[in-house]
């Protein structure tokens, strides 16, 4: 409240300061606080200005999937058009946020870090799964069609239910379980550089679900582990420090009917992975590993 009470004199001061800057260049410059306040006010008026429907300059045409089962009249899926001012370096997520902030505050989508780390804004853009924050608008054809990830339940607009994906991720027991303790107390579990290099790409998974959504097998076979879960299994199966018992158990899960053998090497997961994980390669390697374990003639 106190700041609001001080408001009127501040604006007067600002006006005076501006006049001073304009009229006499030699006069004492405004204090940093005043400058900041003035800039903020200017920015606020600038933001308020384009509230009219017309946007000047080049725009991006977004066609966004809309669906809200809780509101009558929105329960039937449809596409909404948004014309967002095109900016240099604009990503799909930026465009969506602009549309939400300026046109329709009910537009719903997940996002958090905006830099491809949290994995919450995997979207189906122009027919391909990709991270909204990692995709430049300039790389896409106009209009940009944005849909929620296919093969998952839509909760609202672009938000899909990830529960099934998480279930499968947990199904492969993705945690480290070595047989023996490291030699000394408080000692680290050492890993060779070569081994680290081998599992490096597999550790990059951000659980965005793009791969599982692109996989035609996962789309038709609900029990199929899916690329991300198999990749998580690979990350631990290929870790030289992993304990033998856990390794065997995990291979048992992976080589089941709905495990690695369901993969038909269509490479769609590898193509859409925003972290460039060679998923198909990892699945194929686990297949070979499973064969090796089962064909022990010695």
């Amino acid at each position, binding site marked *: 409240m106190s700041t609001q009470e001080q408001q009127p004199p501040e604006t007067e001061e600002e006006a005076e300061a501006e006049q001073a800057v304009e009229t006499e260049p030699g006069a004492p410059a405004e204090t940093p606080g005043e400058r900041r306040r003035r800039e903020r006010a200017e920015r606020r008026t600038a933001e308020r200005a384009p509230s009219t429907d017309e946007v000047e300059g080049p725009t991006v045409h977004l066609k966004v*999937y809309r*669906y809200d089962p809780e509101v009558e009249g929105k329960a*039937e*899926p*449809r*596409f909404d058009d948004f014309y967002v001012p095109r900016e240099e370096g604009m990503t799909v997520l930026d465009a969506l946020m602009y549309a939400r902030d300026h046109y329709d505050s009910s537009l719903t989508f997940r996002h958090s870090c905006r830099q491809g780390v949290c994995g919450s804004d995997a979207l189906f853009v122009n*027919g*391909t799964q990709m991270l909204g924050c990692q995709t430049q608008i300039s790389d896409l054809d106009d209009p940009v069609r944005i849909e929620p990830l*296919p*093969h*998952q*339940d*839509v909760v609202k607009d672009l938000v899909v239910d990830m529960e*099934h994906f998480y279930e499968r991720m947990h199904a492969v027991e993705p945690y480290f379980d070595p047989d023996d303790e490291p030699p000394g107390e408080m000692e680290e579990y050492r890993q060779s550089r070569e081994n680290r290099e081998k599992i490096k790409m597999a550790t990059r998974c951000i659980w965005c679900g793009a791969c599982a959504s692109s996989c*035609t097998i996962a*789309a*038709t076979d*609900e029990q199929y582990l899916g690329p991300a879960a198999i990749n998580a299994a690979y990350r631990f199966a290929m870790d030289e420090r992993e304990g033998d018992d856990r390794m065997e158990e995990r291979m048992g899960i992976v080589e089941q009917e709905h495990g690695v053998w369901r993969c*038909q*090497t*269509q*490479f*769609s997961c*590898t*193509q859409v992975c925003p972290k460039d994980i*060679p998923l*198909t*390669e990892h699945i*194929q*390697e686990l*297949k*070979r590993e499973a064969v090796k374990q089962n064909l022990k003639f010695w």
Partner: protein
Amino acid sequence: MSEAYDRGKIEDYGRWREFSAGMWAWVLHKFTGWVLIGYLFTHIPVLSTAGTGEYEATLQTLEAIALVRVAEVGLLAVAVFHILNGVRLLFVDLGVGLEAQDKSFYASLIVTGAITVASVPTFMQGVF
């Protein structure tokens, strides 16, 4: 998941366009595989008559029909693609050249096309 996947009429619009090289390779491999299986099964009733002269007579009648000749070219294309893509899949299973999987698919398509075209004069000899 399949029943929950229904997103209304707009769901399946243009969905096949998102197919990539690996997906087409898979679809074509399945398709050619089924064609070859079907072709093999047609031999079961015919082979039992081998030696009686009926087999040869049947084949000669069939060979005389132009449409059968065309279908034979198609059969060759199907077999060649299935062989080449099968070799490609063997390499994929061995983890060799996974980065070039799309190129090898296109290559097998082109080679299939070349062999098919080259075979046309042989198959069509004396029909027209």
